[in-house]
């Protein structure tokens, strides 16, 4: 993010620059500020934590509201806004942000919900010791989500996408000690990470077809992409990414386990924001990727997930897991509404995204409040809390009814629109399954509310945490207002659809088939509620029957298999014997050298041109020959001599001769470095020999033979690699460095040193950091050894 501040500071200084092209300077800046506020909060969070337990929460609320308002005001004043800053011009990747109806809608959800949830966690997280990192990662997530929504460049979008995956991993695994949370975090990371890789591949293929990473160009090139040969792989990879991120079947298994995270995380990431990223992608790329294959693939998966999620929600007993499965089911509904690819479908999808964020967020906050107050989270042990927690009861009632799709709440409108869209799609099975899904949702939604708040009093003594109830109440009220005055939002949604389309459902006009479908689903829901306990028992029996074939087992088997293989491989190579370590090392070196030989069909092993030497040519060459032969003798001695000390001596002898060879080849710098390194090396060898009683073991003939073979393999490998490079020795590299302007450009005449410190300075920095790191590593190793 430093990049943003750098450019932002330049913008602030009103420096005339063509970066923010063709637009009043301050508008682009506002968009940047909106994006960087959450990141700024994330950085400050740990410090704010010290001022007081609730301070970070309120500041987070402020940051969220500020971004929310900036986006709103910016949209009101400027309409479409685009910022285009060069990021990696050589690869055609730009740091482009853009504001349009779609990104505004999702942006408002992300920042609005984020702000509310920060307010909620101000008190919820007050007693938690993990509050510091919690706020840091939440701020990071909000910024990443906002970035993902505003991104105007494929690679930038991917970057923020992966950042959301990372922050979700960190948030789920917040309780480091507990195995449950680390396993859940790993599962979430692996699956959403898989989605990330699929997305990257899809984007790269897409960019190769369209020829640019810029989102505007990509969105405009719909028919070109569909016609291209790469369309099918792009679509499939894209779908995998959406399924993984939005927890659709078969990648949905990480979401229920992610409920181990604190409730604000579940409310924000795993219901209102992150899981919506997949839906946002569907909405964004619909115009590019839509085709009958799109419908064929997404619709069954979407509706299937909806049904599956609904069934699981009824089966689950843990408060948060019910809501998690409900989210999976609702995401299935959203995915299938976009899968329908009709204007009504998109409209229903967008409206339901908003409604779902509001009502599911409220339900999670309610669940959090109940768990916070009673400490219990099994729905069967709780009940009749309406007198103890009146405000939470009202919020839960509003949200649950909205989820069930009961008029006049918002949920009803978007569900009605969805039913109408399925009816219009002409596919017979879509409306039927839609109704079943609606019925299931009605059942578990009503059961969640009635079980918790109506009926006889069950569960521990309760004091209602007011600070937790208010945000839930706000969301509940919002669900109601969205139902009565949809006009607030439908204007924006129509804007997001293709131009000219209008999507304005309202309580007043009724679409007959959709109304009938709603009634049917309500009826089915009531039926299920009537026999709720038996259905749950039945579902539990079915689940036990199928437990051998669920995706969870597949995931468990895969991870277990990989870990097992890893352990076996580690044991084979790290079994403590020094001999084994060096053997593995040399085998790897040998393979690395010999493998490239195969395609080269054995590069010219021996070359004829002897490298010509400066100075009195013939005599100097003879001297060099003698030195090289002597080095070979020393090397053989090092291998043959029994006691280690003698071997070390021959090694150091070889080192000095190497220095002599460097000198004969006119490289004084190298000779000096070689000599000095040789001296220090000898001292280290002597120390090691003294510390490590290396008794000269007599290896068995078989082992000596295998070692010899290995050595010969490496010998051939090295000659194969070195010779071609010697044969094709061209001096273009030298000419570049020895070019005329060497002195005045770098102020030095010693080309070796100039290269090291100036031209290739960056590599040198790498080298010395490696050296420093090696020293630190050895330091810790030796220090730990002394402490046993």
């Amino acid at each position, binding site marked *: 993010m430093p990049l943003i501040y750098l450019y932002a500071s330049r913008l602030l200084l009103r420096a005339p620059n063509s970066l923010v092209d063709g637009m009043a300077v301050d508008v682009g800046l506002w968009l940047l500020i909106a994006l960087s506020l959450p990141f700024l909060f994330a950085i400050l969070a740990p410090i704010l934590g010290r001022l007081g337990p609730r301070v970070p929460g309120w500041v987070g609320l402020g940051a969220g509201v500020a971004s929310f308002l900036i986006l709103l005001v910016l949209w009101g004043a400027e309409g479409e806004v685009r910022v285009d800053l060069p990021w990696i011009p050589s690869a055609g990747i730009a740091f482009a942000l853009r504001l349009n109806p779609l990104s505004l809608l999702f942006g408002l959800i992300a920042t609005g919900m984020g702000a509310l949830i920060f307010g909620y966690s101000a008190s919820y997280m007050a007693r938690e010791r993990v509050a510091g990192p919690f706020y840091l990662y939440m701020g990071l997530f909000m910024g990443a989500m906002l970035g993902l929504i505003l991104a105007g460049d494929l690679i930038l979008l991917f970057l923020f996408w992966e950042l959301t995956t990372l922050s979700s991993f960190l948030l789920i695994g917040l309780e480091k000690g507990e195995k449950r949370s680390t396993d859940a975090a790993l599962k979430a990371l692996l699956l959403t990470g898989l989605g990330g890789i699929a997305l990257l591949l899809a984007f790269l293929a897409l960019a190769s077809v369209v020829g640019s990473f810029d989102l505007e160009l990509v969105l405009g090139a719909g028919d070109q992409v569909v016609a291209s040969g790469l369309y099918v792989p792009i679509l499939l990879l894209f779908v995998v990414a959406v399924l993984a991120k939005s927890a659709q079947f078969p990648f949905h298994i990480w979401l229920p386990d992610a409920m181990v995270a604190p409730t604000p995380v579940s409310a924000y990431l795993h219901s209102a924001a992150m899981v919506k990223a997949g839906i946002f992608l569907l909405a964004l790329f619909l115009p590019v990727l839509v085709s009958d294959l799109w419908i064929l693939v997404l619709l069954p998966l979407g509706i299937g997930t909806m049904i599956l999620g609904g069934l699981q929600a009824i089966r689950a007993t843990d408060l948060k897991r019910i809501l998690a499965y409900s989210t999976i089911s609702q995401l299935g509904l959203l995915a299938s509404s976009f899968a329908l690819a009709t204007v009504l479908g998109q409209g229903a999808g967008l409206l339901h995204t908003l409604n779902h964020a509001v009502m599911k967020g409220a339900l999670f906050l309610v669940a959090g409040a109940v768990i916070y107050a009673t400490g219990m989270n099994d729905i069967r042990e709780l009940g009749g809390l309406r007198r103890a927690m009146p405000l939470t009861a009202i919020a839960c009632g509003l949200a649950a009814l909205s989820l069930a799709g009961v008029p006049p709440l918002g949920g009803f409108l978007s569900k009605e629109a969805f039913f109408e869209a399925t009816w219009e799609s002409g596919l017979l099975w879509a409306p039927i399954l839609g109704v079943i899904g609606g019925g299931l949702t009605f059942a578990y939604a009503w059961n969640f509310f009635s079980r918790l708040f109506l009926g006889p009093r069950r569960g521990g003594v309760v004091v209602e945490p007011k600070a937790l109830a208010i945000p839930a109440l706000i969301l509940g009220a919002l669900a109601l207002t969205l139902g009565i005055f949809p006009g607030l939002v439908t204007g924006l949604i129509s804007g997001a659809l293709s131009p000219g389309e209008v999507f304005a459902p309202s309580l007043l006009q009724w679409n007959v088939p959709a109304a009938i479908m709603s009634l049917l689903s309500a009826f089915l829901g009531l039926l299920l509620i009537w026999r709720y306990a038996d259905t749950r028992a039945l579902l539990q029996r079915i689940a036990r029957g199928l437990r051998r074939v669920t995706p969870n087992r597949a995931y468990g088997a895969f991870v277990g298999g990989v870990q097992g293989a890893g352990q076996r491989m580690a044991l084979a190579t790290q079994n403590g014997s020094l001999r084994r370590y060096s053997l593995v090392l040399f085998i790897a070196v040998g393979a690395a050298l010999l493998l490239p030989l195969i395609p080269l069909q054995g590069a010219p092993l021996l070359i004829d041109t002897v490298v010509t030497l400066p100075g009195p040519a013939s005599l100097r060459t003879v001297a060099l020959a003698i030195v090289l032969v002597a080095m070979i003798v020393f090397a053989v001695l090092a291998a043959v001599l029994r006691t280690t000390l003698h071997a070390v001596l021959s090694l150091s002898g070889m080192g000095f001769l190497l220095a002599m060879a460097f000198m004969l080849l006119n490289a004084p710098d190298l000779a000096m470095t070689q000599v000095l390194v040789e001296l*220090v090396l000898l001292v*280290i060898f002597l120390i090691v020999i003294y510390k490590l009683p290396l008794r000269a073991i007599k290896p068995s003939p078989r082992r000596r033979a295998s070692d010899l073979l290995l050595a010969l393999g490496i010998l051939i490998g090295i000659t194969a690699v070195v010779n071609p490079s010697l044969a094709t020795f061209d001096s273009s590299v030298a000419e570049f460095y020895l070019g005329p302007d060497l002195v005045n450009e770098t102020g030095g005449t010693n080309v070796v040193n100039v290269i090291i410190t*100036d031209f290739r300075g960056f590599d*040198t920095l790498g080298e010395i950091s490696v050296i420093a790191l090696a*020293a630190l590593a*050895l330091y810790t190793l030796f220090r730990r050894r002394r402490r046993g």
Partner: protein
Amino acid sequence: MVSVVARVVTTTVLYVGILFSISLLLAGHNSPGGGFIAGAMTASAFTLLYVVFGREYVETRFRIRFRSISALGLAIAVFFLLLPLAFGLPLLSSLIWTIQLPLLGEVKLVSAVGFDVGIYLAVVGAILTIVRRSAGGESLG
């Protein structure tokens, strides 16, 4: 106990050696030398000191934490890497100041030498940490 003769000679040779290594370091840009060579040289000078005088003697004389020297070297190298940015030049381009010193006349300072000093300290710190720690034993080191 290494013989007295060795101790006497080492003290004289040692200081000249370090001086020579520093001269090589600074002259590195025009004649052979530079961070790596000078670093290795000072490291071997100190190793000699350790071998001839033993750990206690050296530890009492030089209270140096070699790890921090290595880190300092890296910091200096990074500083000189980023310095040109302040002048609007691309990363790591060397800046040349020519200043008139009273005694030595015109002296040309090149920022790359600063980078060299960074390399020098990093290499010295690293090698001596390795040598020092592998020999084990308690103490500062």
